[in-house]
């Protein structure tokens, strides 16, 4: 069965754990993966692609050891396997102006969440982004009605049924 995956990229263990925990309400239908740097994130992206799963969202910290979160998002944007589906959100406490502009212009950044984050906002953004991804990837909307944006998914389901 095709799984929907959200990837959290954050180098500090406590922060990473907290993010994953805050996304736990979605865990019933969304697989939450975590990576500590861009390298490991690329490994997750590859695994997801090999398994035929759908990478719906990447939540990346700006500051990472090695390549930055912005670099990672730009690479994702350039990869045709994910373009058009994977939503990109930058979670950062310290992004300078130039980097943020680059993320928006080159990575097609969908959202920007400042640290410290509000868990409600994080969940809302994640839900909206994943809902978009579900629709764009053509996944079964009904499987995600409980955890994601139910009304929109149902509406899309209805439209799809009537199109047939």
């Amino acid at each position, binding site marked *: 069965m095709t799984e929907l995956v959200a990837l959290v990229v954050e180098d500090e263990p406590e922060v990473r754990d*907290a993010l994953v925990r805050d996304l736990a309400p979605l*865990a019933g239908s969304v697989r939450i993966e975590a990576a500590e740097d861009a390298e490991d994130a690329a490994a997750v992206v590859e695994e997801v692609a090999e398994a035929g799963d759908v990478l719906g969202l990447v939540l990346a910290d700006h500051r990472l050891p*090695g390549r*930055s979160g912005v670099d990672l998002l730009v690479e994702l944007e350039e990869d045709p396997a994910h373009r058009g589906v994977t939503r990109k959100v930058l979670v950062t406490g310290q992004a300078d102006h130039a980097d943020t502009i680059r993320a928006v212009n080159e990575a097609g950044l969908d959202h920007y969440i400042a640290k410290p984050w509000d868990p409600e906002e994080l969940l809302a953004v994640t839900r909206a982004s994943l809902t978009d991804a579900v629709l764009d990837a053509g996944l079964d909307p009904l499987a995600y009605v409980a955890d994601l944006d139910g009304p929109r998914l149902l509406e899309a389901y209805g439209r799809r049924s009537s199109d047939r």
Partner: protein
Amino acid sequence: MTPPVVRVLAVEGDDDVRAQLVADLEALLDGRAEVEVATDVDQGTARARAAVGDGALLALVIAERTLPGGGGGALLQALHDDPTLRATRKVLLTSRPSLHDVDDALKQGAVHGMLNRPWTRSGLREHLGAHLGPFLSDHPDLQARFGDLLAAVPPEERHLDEEALPDPGALLLDPAIDDRQVERLMVEALDAALGRPPRLRVAPGTVLIEEGDDVGGIYVVLDGEVALSRHADGGAHLLHSRSTGPIIGLLSLTGHSRAFLQCRAVSDVLVIPVPLEQLGRALASEPRLSALLTRVLVSSLARRLRRADELQLEVDRLNRALAAERDELSRTVGALAEADAQLVNQARLATIGELAAGVAHELNNPSAALQRAADHLAEALSTIVDPASPEGRALEAARMEAPMGTAEARAARQALAAALREAGLGDRALADRLWGAGVRDLAAARALLQRPPAGSDRTAGRASAPDGGAEARLQRVEAGARAGAAVRGIGQATERIGSLVAGLRAYLRGGSGDEPFTEDVDVAAGVDDALRLLGHRLHDATVERDFDEVPTITGRPGALQQVWTNLLANALDAAGPEVHLRLHVATATTAAGAPAVSVSIIDDGPGIEPALLERVFEPRFTTKHGQVTFGVGLGLSLSRRIVEEHGGIISVTSGPGRTVFTVLLPVTPPAASEAR
């Protein structure tokens, strides 16, 4: 025959001045000559003529320049025009050191001298002698009477020795005749042609020709020094003093009737005024004079030309000096501006330092409160939750768990999911929940889910959901693990705040310079601390650590940490955030052979220009003008000071792609006991 009466006439309108003049003249003449007086031009003329009528010899007339009735110049001119008084010496009494409005009389030969007012008796005596001498040259019988006054009788009037003089061509060109000789010959020729025109004696400071005057003739300078100057740009500019030559008024000879320069006597000067008309007459009557005058003029002009060349060179030199001074000035202004900017920068850094110290201090309280809260929470949780229960064990395990890399964790989680699926216990979502609850293997999962042994009546389709009791247990265990992880997270975050604050305080304390030397300073740990302090800037950097086991040293840990921070920050500034840093800590020996620790910080930046390399340790040298970054701007000079306080050496070598800062610290600083 009785010797003739000699008379001296003093013409002065001011009663006091006249009385003083008469008193001085009578004292000097002591009855050898009569002193007559007059008070204005008409009276003066009358008294002078009366002297002739009386059969007396009028030897000298001293007339006040500003005499009522037309001035002394006019009086003397009138007397001069009288053939019976031609030989009488005529002197102007003046307080104005200029010949400006009397030069007509001068040019006519009507004035033989200028007596400056106020005079001294000795000055008057010289004048008397100078004028009585020429006058008495026609009366040799009287010379004895005035013997003591006749200091210097001018050379006997000589007539040109026609035979001795070379022809005009030789006069003009003969190099054997020197300038002095030519000048003397010219004066003799002039005297011969004009019947010894009168000499004029003037005091220093007297203006012979005023700039802009109509010049009707020349002055031949016989003795003394005159200066030529020109008024321009609000001041007088001296053009010639030693280069004048004996002929003054040269330009008037070329047809410019207005005086181009001011001519002023610098010393006592004896001149012959020669009006152009007289000069023309002399040249016509004495053919050799032309050659002599030409030669004098040529050498005078040559002298002035050389002077002009010298002036030009002087102007060039001054211009160069001026340009150099201007450059120097602009450099000084630039240096001042730079120093000012650095002062502002330092003041800003000091403020930032105080602010940072304040923030660090204030952070201690909430950080300590947080740490205590985490401890209390853990204590309270261990009371509420039975440590032996599954959730209690999960709590303790999560609290103590060593952090695991994400890749490792993912693999382990996938293995757990596979095992669960294999065992028919549940799917990936359940595996994730179990993982989050601290369940790491199938046995633990089994124990938690407490499923009945295999072969139960459950259908395969329901296999992924635990029974009600298991779900409740799982939730409790999940909560326990979450609580444990939260306590651990608080503790670690607090610890990080604490270490950042401690690093910051150590850094600031080092900057204040009053940190004591302590033993057992771990150099490598200090470098690591600096790395941690700069962690926020090192995300994109590659750091290669090559730390040997080194002995601890005696030193100031905070100050040393500042050195490492400075060096690292410099490397980052120079090479950019993606710098490849290599850090070496190794044992070494000092030049004196004492045990030491060496720290090398190598970056792959563009390198330091050789010209700047010598200056990087100079006080306040920085290539980062106006930029305030943490710890930077205090700079390498401070680092050197700190290293040297430790008896160490800091050095740098640099080339493109490789800059090495090396710090060598003796294990025991030679002056540790004396240093602060």
